[in-house]
């Protein structure tokens, strides 16, 4: 149970609730027994499908019933249906799961059933993939709505990646990685703190940067630095931007970029002397600078000393993690 406030319940109130629930419980248990009996008897009929509907309405987490429902469809109903009828049945399934997701957006089984439906859309009409394209179009709208409702729902983000990756080649309008990038920009601009969107961006850019020249990558990275710098200055206490900045710097940055970013963060540090994220970044980038092949011996000594000073200060201002800072500082 998550986030449900505990209330004091008197024994009398508990008893009243129990009595009030009795008829509900009886009805639920009777329905459950009925559906499980049909399942054991391998009844794969329209009537059985209807009964699973009623049961899932009451309990969408009953995975065995979702399994039974899929068996009813594939073993009982699909074999006797035309492709048009199968499309109709699947449309019904999707409508049902959508209604459930509005109430239970984090129940894995519902998402699973939805994906199963999409993967079972038949080819057609005729030889075309028209139906499939129609279904996927709807999925796009739905996943946007769910992410509007909760921009950090990781089920919805995973589902979005799944939809994008599953689109048929004939899908129109074609969805490019650039469109997805635009989508993350929109999400980030409406809330810099949306780490889920920043994360997706690392995946999209990581892929597209593997396919262009180092010069082009450097240009695009500079734009990313500009975007994330805005986020850092807006709220230096929000770790989303800092994590993204660290990703942009990477393990093996160009010395010029690292020096430029170090300087820019030092400026922010002057404004926000107690921001631990800012100091964490400075310590890390100093240590990274000390490791550069181009670093002279004086550079190395200087950067390590700076890092050590910052880590010692962090031990005080971020006391909960003091052991970590102590351990890092002890290497130098």
């Amino acid at each position, binding site marked *: *149970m*998550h*986030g*449900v*406030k*505990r209330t*004091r319940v008197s024994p009398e109130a508990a008893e009243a*609730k*129990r009595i009030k*629930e009795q008829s*509900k*419980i009886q009805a*639920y*248990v009777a329905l*459950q027994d009925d559906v*499980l009996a049909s399942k*054991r008897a391998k009844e794969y009929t329209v009537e059985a499908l209807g009964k699973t509907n009623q049961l899932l309405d*009451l*309990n969408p*987490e*009953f*995975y*065995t019933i*979702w*399994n039974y429902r*899929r*068996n009813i469809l594939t*073993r009982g109903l699909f074999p006797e249906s035309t492709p048009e009828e199968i499309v109709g049945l699947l449309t019904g399934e999707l409508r049902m799961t959508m209604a459930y997701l509005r109430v239970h957006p984090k129940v*894995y*089984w519902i998402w*699973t059933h939805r*994906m*199963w439906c999409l993967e079972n859309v038949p080819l057609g009409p005729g030889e075309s993939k028209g139906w499939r394209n129609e279904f996927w179009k709807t999925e796009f709208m739905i996943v946007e709505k769910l992410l509007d409702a909760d921009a*950090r729902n*990781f089920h919805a*983000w*995973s589902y979005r*990646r799944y939809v994008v990756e599953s689109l048929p080649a004939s899908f129109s309008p074609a969805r490019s990685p650039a469109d997805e990038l635009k989508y993350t920009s929109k999400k980030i601009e409406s809330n810099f*703190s949306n*780490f*889920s969107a920043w*994360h*997706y961006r*690392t*995946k999209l850019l990581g892929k597209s940067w593997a396919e262009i020249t180092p010069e082009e990558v450097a240009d695009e990275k500079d734009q990313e630095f500009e975007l994330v710098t805005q986020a850092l200055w807006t709220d230096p206490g*929000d*770790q*989303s931007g800092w*994590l993204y900045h*660290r*990703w942009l710097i990477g393990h093996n940055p160009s010395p010029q970029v690292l020096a430029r970013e170090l300087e820019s963060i030092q400026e922010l540090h002057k404004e926000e002397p107690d921001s631990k994220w800012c100091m964490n970044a400075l310590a890390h980038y100093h240590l990274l600078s000390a490791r550069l092949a181009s670093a002279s011996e004086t550079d190395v000594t200087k950067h390590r000393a700076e890092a050590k000073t910052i880590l010692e200060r962090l031990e005080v201002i971020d*006391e*909960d*993690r003091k*052991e*970590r800072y102590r*351990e*890092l500082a002890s290497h130098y």
Partner: protein
Amino acid sequence: MTSAPPLDVPLHVKYIQQLDEKKDLAYHLTEHLRLNGVYWGLTALSIMGHKDALPRDAMVDYVMSCWDDEAADTLPPPPSSGAFGAHPGHDAHIHGTCSGIQILIMQDALDRVDVDRVVKFLLTLVGPDGRVEGDQFGEFDVRFSYIFVMVLSLLGRLDAMDTIYDGKGRQLVVDNIVNSMNFDGAFGSEPGAESHGAMVWVCVASLAILGELDRIDRDLLGWWLSERQLPNGGLNGRPEKLEDVCYSWWNLAALSIIGKLHWINRDKLMAFILGAQDLEGGGIADRPGDWVDVFHTVFGLAGLSLVGYPGLRDIDPLYCMPAEVTDKMGLRRDYRTLPRLEQWPQA
């Protein structure tokens, strides 16, 4: 130093003993978690040193009643596979199988189950890209990879991974887990997914069981994990999210496996978990003042044990089972817990 009340062991033992008595509507609606619930209850009791507070034989019989002889009810059925569902009449699933095997081992009753059939069931769930599915309907994520690895290890059958995909089964499963790692050193539920504390634990524990911990950047991951602790002492599962007692377990167990458990503030965390107890009815909630459940009770206790709360039994962070049990089986790995305190609050 802190005003958090001490752990009320007798009250929590009683709470777990009575879980099966309150058959309200919610009880019926959560039947799909019943076998997991028994594992949570038994583990919680074991941590508190009261393993026998629930009758053993009835528990073992209940586990066996969850056996699904038609596991993987596909056409045609795979030969001789079998596994546990969440409750009698429920379909076999890797999650129920996980709890079933863990309980049987903790109760020293593994001889009741046909291990070969379980192994066969597990092997049918591995996809060609190394993903592990929960059952034949295709849902997959790294939680199932963990269960797959962990249960095979408990059964002493990790070598069975080498019998699939031309001897590449093990490599495929490991690669799929490693591909779920992100730039922040942490793991998401599948390749491409955002890092999440629970996924970090299952991935780190899987890699530890398989002896592949060198695939992890301990400093980077330790940083991400230690930043999960919020000023109120509780831990969250992702950046900029709320604290929750169950994350004490996911994040702490991972920190323990990579040897960085001392990177968080132990006392504040203890106080947070202790503050989430219901000192009237027993049990632990997701956060102070919320309704309790057995899930948060066990993970709160397991977290307290890892960071050294006095009087609790040791827990193995790879298996979430009493260390006594996994040690005896020769499964101990090189994890680090915090020294057990003499008393709480400290003098």
